[in-house]
């Protein structure tokens, strides 16, 4: 159980006379804990970068950082969508396959109709993802099947569809040479030195974060994850909200597929394989509670950035790639331990606040 360190007996009368003053501190406390959570990831990130730079000063060279941001961009977009789903106490394991399908669909569109404007290609890929998300969401919300099971099924189904399409169209791989140059330019495009793909990811995170915090339906997503029964009793349209979360997540996975196509420009049917667990890991490391109800998209984005950085930093430190997986595992465990510790602390503090003067 929680057994904080014994504090010396206090001078009591003043302490006890003050319960109503503790009121405002309650929210400050909660807020501080969340900030601590996000600062923790940031600190880990800074530490990692520092260590790597000491070992290899070229780690912070322009090209290296740009590569890092490009890789992080895709994971971040996925993590933003996944956060919306996880806060409702669901999970979407099919995002890797959706990414693959959307990347392949976008590529095919551009091969078949090379004149397609880039914007249209982006919208098309996003739409493919949205349709996949709609399918997931319909089964979860309408049929009431646990999302873990549903999306585990569609993980294979969407991937299978992708392979089937590729083999029946006799186009197992799409190469850079097949893609129009306008689209390829997107992968390398920069604005003020920052890769455009990364800016897209930042925009997505800010938008989702703003939505979750500012709109009734965004708050309702948290409510659904926090207490599903209470959500039903308070008249929240649970099914519709969960469906929306899945559709948005699917659309973002579709967008991530387009980003993937633009960045790698060589597409086959394995694109995005295994990403789903990496995304969930990013969200968990970022403080999104896997049982729903709490966590922010900013934390998840930081988690994605951290995981990507580990992936690129470890080889630079001269470590075997095997260590990447071990490090990710350790991080997840550390994140869970940290969340638990913070929660116990918060609970202990808040419980004390029940005792209050009532007049």
């Amino acid at each position, binding site marked *: *159980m*929680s*057994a*904080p360190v*014994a*504090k*010396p*007996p*206090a001078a*009591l*009368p003043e*302490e*006890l*006379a*003050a*319960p*109503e003053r*503790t*009121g*405002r501190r*309650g*929210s400050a406390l*909660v807020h501080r804990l969340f900030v601590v959570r996000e600062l923790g990831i940031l600190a880990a990130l800074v530490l990692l970068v520092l260590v790597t730079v000491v070992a290899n000063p070229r780690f912070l060279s322009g090209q290296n950082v740009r590569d890092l941001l490009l890789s992080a961009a895709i994971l971040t977009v996925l993590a933003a969508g996944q956060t919306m789903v996880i806060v409702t106490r669901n999970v979407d394991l099919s995002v890797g396959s959706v990414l693959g399908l959307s990347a392949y669909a976008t590529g095919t569109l551009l091969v078949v109709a090379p004149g397609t404007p880039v914007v249209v290609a982006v919208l098309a890929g996003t739409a493919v993802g949205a349709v996949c998300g709609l399918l997931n969401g319909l089964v979860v919300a309408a049929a009431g099947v646990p999302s873990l099971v549903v999306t585990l099924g569609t993980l294979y189904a969407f991937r299978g569809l992708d392979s089937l399409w590729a083999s029946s169209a006799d186009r197992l791989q799409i190469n850079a040479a097949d893609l129009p140059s306008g689209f390829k330019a997107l992968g390398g495009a920069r604005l003020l030195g920052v890769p455009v793909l990364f800016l897209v990811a930042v925009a997505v995170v800010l938008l989702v974060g703003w939505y979750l915090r*500012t*709109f*009734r339906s965004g*708050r*309702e997503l*948290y*409510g659904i*994850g*926090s*207490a599903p*029964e*209470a*959500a*039903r*009793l*308070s*008249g*929240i*349209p649970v099914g519709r909200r969960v469906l929306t979360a899945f559709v948005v997540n699917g659309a973002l996975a579709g967008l991530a597929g387009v980003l993937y196509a633009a960045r790698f420009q060589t597409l086959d049917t394995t694109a995005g394989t295994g990403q789903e667990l990496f995304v969930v890991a990013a969200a968990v490391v970022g403080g999104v*509670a896997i049982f729903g*109800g*709490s966590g922010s998209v900013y934390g998840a984005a930081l988690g994605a950035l951290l995981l990507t950085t580990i992936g690129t930093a470890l080889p630079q430190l001269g470590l075997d790639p095997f260590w990447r997986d071990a490090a990710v595992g350790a991080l997840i465990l550390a994140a869970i331990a940290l969340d638990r510790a913070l929660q116990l602390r*918060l*609970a*202990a503090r*808040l*419980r*004390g*606040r*029940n*005792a*209050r*003067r*009532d*007049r």
Partner: protein
Amino acid sequence: MDHASSSAPGRVVLALEDVGKSFGAVAALRGAQLELRAGETHALVGENGAGKSTLVKILAGVHGPDTGRVLLDGQPVALADPAAARAAGIAVIYQEPTLFPDLSVAENIFMGRQPLLPGRRIDRRTLARRCRELFDRLGVALDPDRPARGLSIADQQMVEIAKALSFDARVLVMDEPTAALSGVEVERLFAVARSLRDSGAAVLFISHRFDEVFDLCDRITVMRDGQWVSTDPARDLTVDRVVRRMVGREVSSLFPKIDVEPGEVVLEVRGLTRRGVFADVSFDVRAGEIVALAGLVGAGRSEIVRAVFGVDPYDAGSVRVSGEELRKGDPAAAMAAGIALVPEDRRQQGLVMELSVERNATLTRRWKLARGGLLSSRAERAQAAEWSKRLQVKAGRLSDPVSTLSGGNQQKVVLAKWLSTEPRVLIVDEPTRGIDVGTKSEVHRLLSELAAGGLAVVMVSSELPEVLGMADRVLVVSEGRLVDDIPRARADEDSVMLAATGQGGTSAGAAR
């Protein structure tokens, strides 16, 4: 939604006609009826499992009736879901608090109805202000921005009440809102309920405390076994008549307290202190003694007993059982030393809602029932059956999940679970919360008998008659301190209330 002013007093706003509702083989309602008029406070009473909460859930749009009709302003309506009931102007406080633990108190109250800025953005400033206004009206000192997680049961209930009030509804339904509240809070709630009534709303009030029912309500509807029994003006009724209609037989609501000569000191609490919560709490409890902790909600009574049992930490002091000091913050050690705690919040701390009645009832003593490490389900079932019978648990089958039981019956299962551990010190926090008259006196008889058999009992209770009827000594807690120690002979309503509100306290200080 300003429905309240639109209905003329005395007009029937909401009615149930011949409503039936079954859950599988259990017929929760058969031919229930109810008629709520504008400008009246209406009580609904009945034993545990009589179907009161089921009826409430039909009014709330949670359950659809199998048979019968719901009439709003004389017109049949289908309340398809909770949103529809809200739109019809019906606000409901459910028996079990239904809060979002991760969200702030203010968001809990206004979920789905947050005040908006242009562009449909949530206006957080107004949200906090409106929440504070509601709390002022109810006299609650809660911070709107704190999360609902960790609120005491009483505070959860106050948040639920604030939520229901915020609707400005024409029908306010309250399912045992006072079960966790003490006199002062109840008075405040009633003042608000009366002012709603006077502005033309219909108020439906459910409680097992008859003094409250007669204090607040204009008319009383009695239910038994899912059926309507009677509806009469309160002034034509007496408590005895209501009870007889509820139970169908005579029940003595007197507490059969057995006088016991106290034995050795079993529980010794010295200088227990938790900063900001309670301070320098010292008391002894002897074998055979029933000691009540009385005081206002939020005085720190539950926090004290939780610290004694070890589920909460404390900063200073000691707890001894039969002279042995307990390790602090270690409930397992406390249980091994023979302490049992029946917690206040049965849903979160007392029961595993998905497990069956028998599993829950024997959860704490599974090792004693095990043979060679294997659980004997026959022994388990026999034990569960015995305690369920002694406490008159009304359940379809003992293998049904606890979540399908009525609120009062869930409370009985929690009691059964701890009583069956045969403890030396029994700490009960609100032992009869939500329990009906018949069983209440049964629980009191049981506690009294157990004490006579040498058990030391510490009882936290907000119900003054219970405290006065049961306790050998009343320890009054006010703002985290023991302010008085009143022996049975001197304990009465005035002495306890004066001490609790900080105006009395003749023998203030530690009680040894």
